[in-house]
């Protein structure tokens, strides 16, 4: 990896972030559905009250002034005030981030581990029953609507078997408890959404791992390794897997957009108080400042993750050049 490659990718990421800023701004101004109209729908509000509310949210100024105000606000991390919560958008989002991480990080780890394992077995035993089963199951989970799998899990494991709570992050009715009792409660609430999310993401890793390893296994150096007298297990572990894992490594960072889409649906189904559920609530209430803030945050994270995966790829695979 050389400096030119790094610089090029970095510049691309910066351009994309600016494009996101502009898209994000204009999306929320040009489209029908005036935020002010939404805000002052209640007919009981007097004209003066409407004007003061508009001034409060900066809606009374011309659009180009609003644009510069917006850019300045983004760089000072001031994303406005939520219509629903009447609090700064940044504070509301920051409150919800830990819950989303608590859900997505364990799910991602489980998905990567089991996905790679199933993919490896499938590629290694290509065409056998375990391949057909592993690939088939992964494709089914991949094709399934994420939220639907969540609903099925709730219906089966919570409503029918009564094994897990149906929604939320903890049981709120129990009052004061010790830290450990509360942590245990959160874990019980966490199990079902994490498993659902892992199952949804699993398919992608399985298929990429399988294709990647299959490609690697046709390379000449694999034959060479056999010719040198390595055992099959050794060839797989020492010669094939390290190269086959490269696309999977970059997929982990590149998949952030996919992970967020999954979290959005799963948090909605399980009423998990993270960023995804927040976005759902913001959509239902047409809370434009909040929606804009979340969309901006998600987009910038995804652009950053993509940049990271480009660097990682260039670092892991020396054949990549600018």
């Amino acid at each position, binding site marked *: 990896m050389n400096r030119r490659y790094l610089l090029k990718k970095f510049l691309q990421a910066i351009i994309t972030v600016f494009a996101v800023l502009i898209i994000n701004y204009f999306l929320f101004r040009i*489209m029908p*559905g005036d935020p002010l109209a939404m805000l002052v729908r209640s007919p009981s509000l007097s004209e003066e009250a409407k004007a003061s509310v508009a001034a409060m949210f900066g809606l009374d100024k011309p659009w180009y002034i609003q644009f510069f105000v917006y850019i300045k606000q983004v760089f000072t991390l001031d994303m406005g005030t939520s219509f629903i919560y009447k609090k700064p958008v940044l504070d509301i989002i920051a409150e919800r981030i830990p819950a989303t991480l608590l859900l997505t990080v364990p799910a991602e780890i489980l998905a990567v581990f089991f996905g790679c394992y199933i993919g490896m077995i499938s590629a290694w035993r290509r065409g056998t029953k375990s391949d057909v089963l592993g690939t088939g199951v992964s494709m089914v989970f991949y094709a399934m609507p994420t*939220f*639907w799998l969540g609903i099925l899990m709730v*219906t089966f494991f919570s409503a029918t078997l009564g094994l897990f709570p149906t929604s939320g992050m903890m049981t709120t009715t129990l009052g004061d408890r010790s830290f450990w009792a509360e942590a245990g409660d959160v874990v019980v609430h966490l199990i079902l959404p994490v498993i659902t999310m892992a199952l949804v993401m699993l398919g992608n890793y399985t298929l990429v791992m399988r294709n990647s390893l299959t490609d690697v296994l046709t390379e000449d150096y694999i034959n060479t390794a056999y010719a040198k007298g390595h055992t099959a297990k050794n060839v797989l572990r020492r010669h094939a897997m390290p190269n086959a894992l490269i696309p999977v490594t970059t997929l982990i960072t590149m998949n952030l*957009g996919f992970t*967020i889409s999954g979290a959005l*649906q799963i948090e909605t189904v399980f009423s998990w108080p993270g960023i995804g559920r927040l976005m759902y609530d913001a959509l239902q209430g047409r809370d434009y400042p909040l929606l804009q803030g979340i*969309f901006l945050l998600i987009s910038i994270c995804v652009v950053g993750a993509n940049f990271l995966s480009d660097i990682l790829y260039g670092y892991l695979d020396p054949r990549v050049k600018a």
Partner: protein
Amino acid sequence: MITEGQIPHIKNSFIGSFRVFCKNKMGVLSLIVLLFFIFIAVFGQLLVPYDPQSFGQNGIMEAPSASHVLGTDEMGRDLFGALVSGTRTSLLVGIFGTVISMVVGALIGIVSGYRGGKIDALLMRLTDIMLVLPWLPLMLVLAALMGSSIWNIIAVIGLTGWAQTARIIRAQTLSIKERQYIERARVIGSSDFHIIRRHILPDVFPLILADAVTTAACAIDAETTLSFLGMGDITRPSWGMILHYAFESGAASSNAYWYLIPPGLCVLFVVLSFSYIGNAFDEIFNPRLRGRSENGAS
């Protein structure tokens, strides 16, 4: 002479492709499943004994019985009827969304690859940005801002899903552009439009078709997810809308499996079918893959 020689060649390659496709058992099975759903979408209303929107005379949240094979919903509507009309909406959105996304993607890909230079750089930057943006949040924001009529949903799906297609088509156009017959056409004074229409478009068409299958799977999934998250058209029942109502009415905690399972299964079957057909197409257009799987089986 040359054209005469080419016609049987094209025919053979089509029949050959079809033979390769027929060898793929999952592909053929998937095609049958898809044809079944299309049949239901077109003629399904004739099989339904009830008006899908009528409610009041039936019991609410009834489990499946002889009169209502899939039970009823929280307003006493017949769920089999809802499922059948949902088939029409879901397939319609999927197909139109795919068509828009193919047209936009192919147009951008061909212009970008054929023109090159600044236009190419600009269009590809745009494509990269579209590829990076997280699709579901973007679609949700667009749907929320545009309002959720069925045509808006189709537009949102079509306008967010073209980036991958544009990349594939551009790459293919770049390689076709260098071929001799394009050079020859240019020398005899054919216009760019003529060259694109008569030479490049026919050559990239199989690729567009193969990509359309994958995109259709995404489009159907997207419609279902958007509708479930409350951004669907409430006047048109789709599979996603049925699941939205099911979730809102608490079907999950009251264990109303007849309400929850059939629409999701329909989505699953259709999306899986498109995916398997996509895999079969991949084998046709990517002979390296075919050789590989034969090696693997031996």
